[in-house]
């Protein structure tokens, strides 16, 4: 009578203990971290400076690998195809939120779980110090009178400059020659040599050039002047209507497979939250020209949804030729 009951009790307790130990054990081996952009880029820098702090908290090693290509499609696709056991992390930037819109892939961050949205980069529109324009308003005025004459540096469809250009075109009209470079670096180099007239760039890519007097800022993509860039007017001064899209910027985050067990998700979320909030990383991020977000769970999802809706609709309204599908068809709500 008692015996079967005891047995089943023992089994139950035993399995609980097993489950408990599995829980306590994560991570019991190295974790693989995939960076969806190349070595030396902004996403790479953020991932490599944050990870050692997470390793300390989780007491494990996170092996970082760059898997660049196809604006991050390849790296993300790789992580999504791995087992949902929490041993494969994706370090990504904002690009996947636009994949379906641009016809690059049929997945977005909605198909993964956001462990942490680490931070957001600030955007500045930069020009050479010899440029006749001191503010973006002056540049807009010139471009209105001389359409199709100024040369704007870009990084291709879906890149930051093309998105900022789309936002500007959604509220006003800026007709320029679009000169495409392989990334921020080559674009900044061309700007330094005056081979292009201006370029919207992430602050992390140009802060030092502006500080050193090699470039100047025409506007920052915020509604208020930045403490770190005194004297550079907010873009709302030239284009008040653009405020509807702000705050906007490229962001960096850490993601795992959607089907990862909840307890592992929360272990990771706690570790990353603590690491991002740490003094050392905060100092890095400020120095890097980024603003902390440190979002997880519902807050992270809300941020991702809002970013996607603002960007997709501004690109759609500016009739950017890269938009393959209307955001409406993809179920992206209007901002």
């Amino acid at each position, binding site marked *: 009578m008692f015996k079967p009951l005891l047995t089943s009790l023992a089994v139950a307790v035993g399995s609980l203990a097993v489950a408990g130990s599995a829980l306590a054990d994560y991570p019991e081996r190295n974790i693989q971290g995939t960076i969806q952009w190349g070595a030396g880029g902004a996403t790479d820098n953020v991932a490599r400076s944050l990870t050692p702090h997470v390793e300390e908290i989780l007491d494990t090693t996170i092996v970082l690998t760059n898997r660049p290509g196809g604006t991050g499609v390849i790296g993300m696709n790789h992580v999504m195809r791995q087992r949902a056991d929490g041993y494969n992390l994706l370090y990504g930037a904002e690009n996947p939120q636009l994949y379906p819109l641009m016809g690059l892939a049929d997945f977005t961050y909605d198909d993964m779980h956001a462990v942490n949205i680490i931070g957001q980069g600030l955007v500045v529109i930069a020009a050479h110090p010899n440029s006749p324009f001191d503010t973006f308003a002056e540049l807009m005025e010139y471009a209105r009178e001389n359409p199709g004459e100024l040369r704007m540096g870009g990084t291709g469809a879906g890149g930051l400059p093309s998105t900022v250009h789309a936002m500007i075109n959604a509220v006003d009209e800026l007709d320029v020659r679009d000169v*495409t470079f392989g990334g921020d670096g080559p674009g900044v180099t061309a700007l330094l040599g005056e*081979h292009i007239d201006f370029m919207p760039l992430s602050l992390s890519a140009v802060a030092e050039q502006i500080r050193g007097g090699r470039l100047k800022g025409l506007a920052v993509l915020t509604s208020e002047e930045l403490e770190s860039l005194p004297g550079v007017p907010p873009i709302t001064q030239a284009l008040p209507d653009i405020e509807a899209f702000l705050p906007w910027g490229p962001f960096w985050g850490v993601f795992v497979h959607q089907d990862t067990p909840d307890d592992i998700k929360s272990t990771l979320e706690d570790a990353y939250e603590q690491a991002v909030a740490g003094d050392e990383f905060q100092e890095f991020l400020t120095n*890097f020209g980024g603003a902390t977000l440190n979002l997880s769970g519902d807050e992270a999802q809300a941020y991702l949804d809002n970013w996607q809706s603002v960007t997709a609709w501004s690109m759609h309204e500016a009739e950017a030729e890269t938009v393959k599908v209307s955001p409406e068809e993809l179920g992206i709500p209007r901002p």
Partner: protein
Amino acid sequence: MSDTFSFLLMAWLDPGLLSLTALGVLAGIYIGAIPGLSVTMAVSILISFTFSWDINNALALMVGIYVGGVYGGSRTAILLNIPGAPSAVVTAFDGYPLAQRGEAGRAIGLSTVMSVIGGFIGVAVLAGTAPYLSDLALQFAPRDYFLIAIMGLLLVSTLSGKSLARGIFSVALGSTIGLVGMDMVTAQPRLTMGSMELLGGIHYVVVMIGLFGVAEAFYQLHNMAKVPVKQNVDKIIPPLNMVLKFLPLSIRTSIIGVVVGALPGTGGDIASLFAYDHAKRTVKNPSSPFGEGAYEGLVAPETANNAAVGGAYVPMLTLGMPGDAVTAVIIGALVIHGLNPGPMLMIETPHIFWFTVGNLALANIFLLIFGMTGIKVFSKVVEIPKAILIPLILVLCVVGTYSINSNMMEVYWMLGFGILGYWLKVYGFQMGPIILGVILGPLLDETYRQAMSSVGDSSSDFLLALVANPLSLALTTVITLVLLGNTPLKGWIMARFARN
């Protein structure tokens, strides 16, 4: 001034920095020698590894690996006809025939000395002219890079061997391979046939390992019965008169290397191609015909690719802009260590500049020491029976390819290129022009479109710009002269002058 000296000598006098530099060079030689394991990869792994270190220690190790790695690529190029890195592709042209003649030891010894000479010239130019050279590099507009790419295409005549038609076909094939992937401007997939894996394009090292490594291994199966050449390992250190004889050439090719290396859009791979071409055009009586084991054909690329290291540091240290992929990663390391790589770096933290200069010089000394070690053992690799060597090469190719992006798909591609390369070899095609196309195709595509959109897509304005700017005019003139020099017109003009 005394500060400058103390920064310069920092790495020489501190035992910790000294040994880290030495360790870096030694590790770099072996990383560089394995196709697929790249310096860029090693340096990015080091960033996480050296996160909590002092910045000088981290930089010393990275400088060592960089210098050792660029040199290391030549070892497998000479011994097995498999370049360890794209900048060593050219080294194989004459290095491998030398090894086949039993002179592998001599070839490695010579390439070591020449790499060190190139390295020192690179450091000297970096130390003496960095701010001026970086200003010059900034003058290069997209149209000038386009012209450089055109000049590169003209190298096909140097690289084709016997049949120019086959060479031109190979360059076209290579450029097409180089264009696979997402279009840079419109983000549209090109030649990907709907495959998501191909969106990122085909990595040129994948093509290189396939064409040189696997194709070579298959091709060797033809002469399974041939007894490997006995290597002469007595004459490893090149005699002084030989080094002196090549000194003028090595200085010229080093300068080509350092300038091409300093341009942010081009690196050691293109520098070594131009240097080889320069040697072939200017050296009238090489020790053997080029392509059949000319020492000059080894001197030119080996000096140029090591001089390009010093060149790549020029825009990095003066402007915070990378000169190539490795310096891009080192900039990332500086950022993570809380420094601000940018135009203020030299003003606010001058010690980084002088420390790097001193450290590069030190790394070249270690290169001379370590480069001369292990040659006897390495040369014996050529004597390994084919039945053992060929499977080893295949394993090395697979491991090397997988380690580029940890992607199995790229291993299949590499094997595919190996089979393709084998058939091309059987029908007398050269591998060099294909790699030339893979490297130059995307550069041509990118810079042509940049140059065109800069002038509002007007062809007449584009052509005008090619002659309106002094720098572009100089490049256009060189291209025109090279082209005319290869036509019957040259003989006609020469004849006219001779008659007068």
